[in-house]
Structure formats: structure tokens, C-alpha cells
């Protein structure tokens, strides 16, 4: 019983790390642009499919695939930023969100057009045995995911608090008008934040697909739902919250699945979010979201 609990916890942390990365990307965009980007998961899927295409047609190696995924996600993200967010910077948040959903639709159809088979094999990250920790096992790709999440956190902290760009981002978040008056090019900050968020998402997507050894078009929907869910659970607009939310979601899912099966696992996560929102717990209303 305890052994199961511990093993589930390890597994949960592994997948939770993926959710944390996704949530970080969503939160960066939401925290800085005050908008939810509904095509974030689709942009990640675009990057992963670009890598799949390279793998299928050129047999590209693991590292190259990772780079293509990230580059693809960043490119897709740039398209989204220009079309869906830049025009509505001072306008309607709803218009930006619906536009980003429309682009999600574009990416999804594009993926099925260029890569028509529903499922493609993707080179596995690691084909060996999982790491043994006493009686427990930890998959190497879960370890890689945790490592990536940790690295992302360090990178983000360093960027925000030790670089000029980070100073500009924090200024824009705290007082957008004063930031512009101080000489900060606010639209350019948005573009770079978008690129950073997309890159983080690309890393997450690559690791997820490489862990599963396969890719389907459902990746877009999956990343979007999990990322949004984890972001909301951790408190909208908070980067540490995104990590906590992601890990918590992973743990919740691993334990729910063990006791209740996969369908109830998802149900419990949504139920938790609904209850937390309905109860208006303090930590979730950290930013104005309208």
C-alpha cells in the first residue's frame, strides 16, 4: 500500500513536471500579456509534428529533433503573437482569445493534412530500463522531464531577476504605462516573452512525445487542457504557482488513476478545479482576469 503510494508519487512527479512546463508557458503569456493563449498547445504540437516530419523524411537524430521541435514551436508562437495578440494589445481580450482558438484549429488541420496518419512513431528518448531506487522505479524520461522543469525554473528566475530583459518584463507586468514611459519597448517585450514561452513549451512537447514514443494530433488538445488546468490550480499569473500546480496535478492524476481508473482520474482533476474556482479560494484570484 505504502509502496504503491510512493511509486505513484514518483510517477506523478514525472508527468507533473511536464504539466509544470506547460503551465509555465501559459502563465508567462497570461502574466505578461494578461491574455490566455488558446493556441499554445497547438503551437507545441506544430513543433512536434515538424520534428516528426523531419524524422520520417530524413531520419533526424534526437538532438536535432529537439531543436526542430523548439524552433517549430517558437515559429508557430510568433505567428500567433502577430495575428492574434499584437492587434488586440489595447483592445478586447476575448477577441484575442477567440482568434488564438481559431489558429489552434488551423494548426490541427494543418497537422492532419501534412502528416495524414493518425499516429506516428517518434524516437524514444531512452530505450533502456528504468532507474531502480530500491523497490521503486523511476523512468529515465521522467527524470529528464523533472530535470527540464528544474532547468526551466532556474532559467526563468535568472532571466527575470538577473537580466535587463527580465527587468523590463517585471516592469511591464507591474505598471505597463510606466514601463513604456521609462523607455521600454513594450510590444517587443511581448514578442520576446511569447518566444520564451513557446520555447519552454517546445521542450515540454518534445519530452512528452519522446517519452511516449509516438505522436497523435490529440497532443494539441491534451497540452492545452493540461496546461490550463495546471495554471489555474496553481494560481493564475504566478510562475511558482504554475510549477506547484503542474506537480500537484501530476500527483493528483497518478493517485486518482491508481484508485479510480483513467476516466475518473480526469474527472477528479476537473472537479477539483471547479470546486476551487467556485469556492473562490484566495490564492487563485491573484490577478485580474477580465
Amino acid at each position, binding site marked *: 500500500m505504502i509502496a504503491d503510494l510512493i511509486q505513484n508519487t514518483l510517477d506523478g512527479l514525472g508527468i507533473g513536471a511536464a504539466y509544470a512546463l506547460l503551465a509555465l508557458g501559459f502563465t508567462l503569456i497570461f502574466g505578461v500579456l494578461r491574455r490566455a493563449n488558446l493556441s499554445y498547445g497547438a503551437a507545441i504540437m506544430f513543433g512536434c509534428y515538424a520534428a516528426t516530419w523531419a524524422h520520417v523524411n530524413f531520419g533526424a537524430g534526437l538532438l536535432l529533433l529537439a531543436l526542430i521541435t523548439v524552433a517549430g514551436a517558437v515559429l508557430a508562437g510568433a505567428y500567433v503573437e502577430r495575428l492574434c495578440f499584437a492587434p488586440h494589445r489595447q483592445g478586447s481580450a476575448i477577441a484575442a482569445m477567440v482568434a488564438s482558438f481559431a489558429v489552434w484549429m488551423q494548426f490541427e488541420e494543418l497537422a492532419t493534412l501534412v502528416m495524414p496518419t493518425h499516429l506516428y512513431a517518434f524516437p524514444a528518448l531512452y530505450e533502456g530500463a528504468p532507474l531502480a531506487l530500491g523497490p521503486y522505479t523511476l523512468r529515465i524520461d521522467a527524470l529528464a522531464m523533472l530535470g527540464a522543469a528544474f532547468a526551466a525554473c532556474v532559467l526563468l528566475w535568472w532571466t527575470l531577476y538577473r537580466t535587463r530583459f527580465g*527587468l*523590463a518584463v517585471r516592469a511591464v507586468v507591474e*505598471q505597463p504605462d510606466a*514601463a*513604456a514611459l521609462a523607455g521600454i519597448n513594450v510590444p517587443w517585450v511581448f514578442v520576446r516573452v511569447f518566444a520564451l514561452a513557446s520555447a519552454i513549451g517546445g521542450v515540454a512537447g518534445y519530452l512528452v512525445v519522446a517519452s511516449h514514443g509516438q505522436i497523435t494530433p490529440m497532443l494539441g488538445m491534451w497540452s492545452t487542457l493540461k496546461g490550463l488546468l495546471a495554471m489555474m490550480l496553481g494560481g493564475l499569473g504566478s510562475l511558482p504557482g504554475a510549477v506547484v500546480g503542474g506537480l500537484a496535478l501530476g500527483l493528483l492524476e497518478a493517485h486518482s488513476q491508481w484508485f479510480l481508473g483513467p476516466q475518473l482520474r480526469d474527472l477528479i482533476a476537473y472537479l477539483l478545479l471547479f470546486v476551487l474556482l467556485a469556492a473562490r479560494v484566495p490564492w487563485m484570484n491573484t490577478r485580474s482576469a477580465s
Partner: protein
Amino acid sequence: MSLLQIQDVVTAYGKIEALKGASLEVAQGSITCLLGPNGAGKTTLMMTVAGILKPRKGSILFAGEDIAGRAPHDIVTRGVALVPENRLVFPGMTVLENLQAGAYQRNDGKAVAGDLEKMFTRFPRLKERAAQQAGTLSGGEQQMLAVARALMSRPKLLLMDEPSLGLAPLVVEEIFRIIAELHKDGVSIFFVEQNAHMALKVAQHFYLIEQGRISFSGTPGALAEDEVIRRAYLGSAQQ
């Protein structure tokens, strides 16, 4: 020589015109004051010059170049800095970081460090609180910080929107003393005020804005002599 020339500027919020064709000039090396009641368009004018708001009509010439409608960061590049109404410091960032933000566009690291030292010398209380979060500072200290932040970009023209708002009289005196000092250092200053008494002590030229239009332009003496203005803005008591 005219450093700033605003001509027939119209700025609107949707259908409501806040500036209905405002025109004024700020001479190089001067201290100019814009007086006016609440809602007259003072802040709108400042925000339009600084680029936060875009004018529908009119031109804004700074050192001969039309900056109307340009992005705020472009305007800072050209040498205009605005100390906004209500200070708008970055509350979660330290005093030092606020100042560094003000120097965002500058690439001359050593000179920036030198300027930071100068700011700390001019504003000793900021030096004490350099590592403190700006949101925890008092109103007067935040005003100092906002002014110092704007100065970090080495502006040729410093705009100030109601620098004395909500501050104790002693602090207000300090602010205006600093304005006079800055002027001696060669910075042209254009500020908006409701508190005409203090303004009379430093400003060299006055404009009055009412309902989106400039209704008076003249020296402090002319302002003080005008019956109507005196009653409205200076009280009927003799100063």
C-alpha cells in the same frame, strides 16, 4: 528657442474629446507650468506628448521633429521623460531596480552607474532605501523615486504631472526645490499643477487649460494680476 511646440492637438477617448485643439510652447531651458482644474485635460496633454495617448489631430514638435503619435519608448529616446500622475513606481521592484528601469535604453554602463550615484546624492533618502521595495515607500519618497527614474534617461525635457499631489507641504517644498535645481543643471521642465502657489515660485511661464483648450498664456506676474484667475486658482487672499 522653442524646445516643445504643441499645435492644435486633439485627443479623444472614443467620442469624448479631452483636448479640443491645444497649443502651447515650451522654451529651451525654461520652467513652464500648466495650470487647470480637474478634468481640463492636463493629464491627457502630458500623456499625449509622452506617447501613451495618440492625438487625432495636431502636431507635437520636439526640437523641431514631430513626435505626435510616436511610441512612448521612441519619445524617451529623443529626450523627453514624463513623471506620471500618481508616480506609478514599480511597487514590487526595489528602488535601485526602478532607477535601472529608467535607464533602460542606455548602453553606457559606466555613465549609468555614475548617474545612479548622482541620484543617490541628490535624493539621500532613496540611497537609504535602495534595496527596499518601492511599494513600501512613503508618498514623498515615491515622488522622488519617480523623478529620479525619469532623470535616469538624461532627458532634455522633463515632464511632470502634478508632482505635489497628495504630499505634505514640507515635501512639496522639497520637490519644488529640486525642480529649481534641475533647471539650473540645464534641464527644461514642463509641469502640470493644481497648486498654483508653489508653481508661482519657480515657473517662468504659465499656461492655463480649461475644457481642453489653452485659455491663458503669460508670465507669473500676468497670472497673479488677472482677477478671474487669481480668484479661481490662488484664492482671493493676497499672497
